[in-house]
């Protein structure tokens, strides 16, 4: 399991958290319980299985929603 911390551009709309949550949860290989979308910090924290999915897949899922990723970090969890 790897732990991703993804910094987004400032989140301001109330429903964006829900959108990002659903989009990331729907991906194969992420640990749904570990997912945290931090509204004020504009960050997404999630554990994922690096054999099934890459950090770029997660980033793409978020960017496809229209939320640009500023930077991301991966650590072993």
């Amino acid at each position, binding site marked *: 399991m790897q732990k991703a911390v993804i910094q987004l551009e*400032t989140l*301001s*709309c*109330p*429903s964006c958290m*829900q*959108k990002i949550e*659903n*989009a990331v949860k*729907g991906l194969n290989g992420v640990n749904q319980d570990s997912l*945290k979308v*931090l*509204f*004020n*910090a504009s*960050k997404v924290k999630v554990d994922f299985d690096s054999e099934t999915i890459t950090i770029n897949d997660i980033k793409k899922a978020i*960017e*496809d*929603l*229209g939320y640009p990723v500023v930077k991301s*970090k991966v650590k072993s969890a």
Partner: protein
Amino acid sequence: MQRYILSKKNSITLISAILIALAFFGRFSIDNWALIIASILGVAPIGIQAYQALKVKVVSIDVLVTIAVIGAVLIQNYEESAIVTFLFLFGSYLEQRTLNKTRSAIKELTELAPESALKQMENGEYEEVDVDDVEEGDILLVKTGAKVPVDGTVLIGEGHINEASITGESVPVRKKVDSEVFAGTILENGTIQIRSDRVGEDTTFGRIIELVEEAQDSKSEAERFIDRFSKFYTPAVLVLGIIVWLFSKDIELAITILVLGCPGALVIGVPVSNVAGIGNGARNGVLLKGSEVINDFSRVDTIVFDKTGTLTIGNPEVAEKEFYGNNPEDVLGYLASVERESDHPLAKAVLQNIGETTLSTVEETEVIKGGGIVAKIGVHRIAVGNVALMEKENVKLSEKAKKDIVRFEKNGNSLVLAAVDGELKVLMGIRDQIRPGVKKDLQKLKLLGVKNLIVLSGDNQGTVDLVARELELTEAHGHMLPEEKSAYIEQIQAKGQTIAFVGDGVNDSPSLALANIGIAMGSGTDVAIETSDVVLMNSDFSRLPHALGLTKSTSRNMKQNITIAVGVVLVLLASLLFSEWMNMSIGMLVHEASILMVILNGMRLLRYRLRE
């Protein structure tokens, strides 16, 4: 294409404002066309967001607005469609701007995080690298004016470091070889070479940032309820709109409901108060761990203090002394020589008080448990200790000495007596000083509505009573072991009191954990950060009243925001039913205004200061 449109949202907002203005003031024949173009342009970014939301099965506000605008265009009400899209876009622009303001305090904090480091490479040269590429054990160079990139130890060099980002204390601290340095602090002068001990999120600064970041997004029970509620609320509004349309065949009414039902202010109200309140705290040396903590702390009616190190400085000093007989210089020399053998805290205070003196060789040192020390210096027999030891040594106490002893004890001193060859020579009264300003701070707490101020201590009852009387506390209990303190807290909790415990966070962790709110006087470096709910940076007691006042204001602010949000939706829906003037544009205007209102209300917390 989608991303391009979204990135041009602000320009689109501006263009549609111009088009609407043209249509209204221009009185050209292009009126309708201008409005149609404004509607289409404006709905594009909203529609894209709505589409993306639906793809992940979320009925978002964008969905409601998009449907409403399309509906308005279909019934050829271009005025409404143009104005609603404009207001929605303009509103979200203002939301973003103002939200950034409320988050600014915490952003300032995270921006203090170091970004790069000068790392020693294999060839011995230093190269600038990203701070993420620094590992434990690396050798780094820090130059004047630069941020210390990691927690580490000084290997070479010296300088003064401003540690305000960690401790809140802005007087620079001198660092030399073997001193510890902390990430995020600033080297004001000198150049040092350090060894990296902890990096990234493991550094003290990293932990503080992580704590504050998690805190600003932590959710209370009420917020989780609102979140669950809004998940169903928006789809419910959509369903309601469809039902109204099916029954009344009135598209106008149906789409107006969609716009009025938007839940914006409700979802955003509490997080906004939370982030502004925690931000104010972080700026003022108070770390609050989330909105649950804010709510609990604001309701506290009893505050329990540990004495040593909390109400008092925790560093006993000689406060009074009396000499008996001649040659006090010689006696002090003997006293210092004997006390040097001991590591008792009172001995430390005595030595500190005596300072430089002539030391003699001490022989046959014997420690009397619960009494003191007896030793020989040359031909003299020296006894240093309490009254019990003097009695055991058959030291005669004069009437004056007996009176002095009573007086010293009444003043809250612990006693150290020294006798030479069975004759009393010196009496010293040692006590722990009360922190300056504590009395005033405690009065502020009372003014803020705290009913009981209680001190618990391991010291004797007399000393504790004295502190309690001096500080006008409501209760004082001495002779308490750590487990007795936590038992006491459990006991008063059972009486229904909401309790905050203030301690140094090291030996009081059971009490800190047990109390409704655990407040640690941490210098920001200890376990205190982990075990407590609130941390007072730099062990600064004077931040306690600010912390309590702030949580009260923040908690009130959250309630105001919930009231505003719910009130606005109710008023809008009611006026739709009972009044003539309500339409989509006014609905959107009121709705956006309510969002801005809760943000601006939250922003007030950033400026919160305790009234004198």
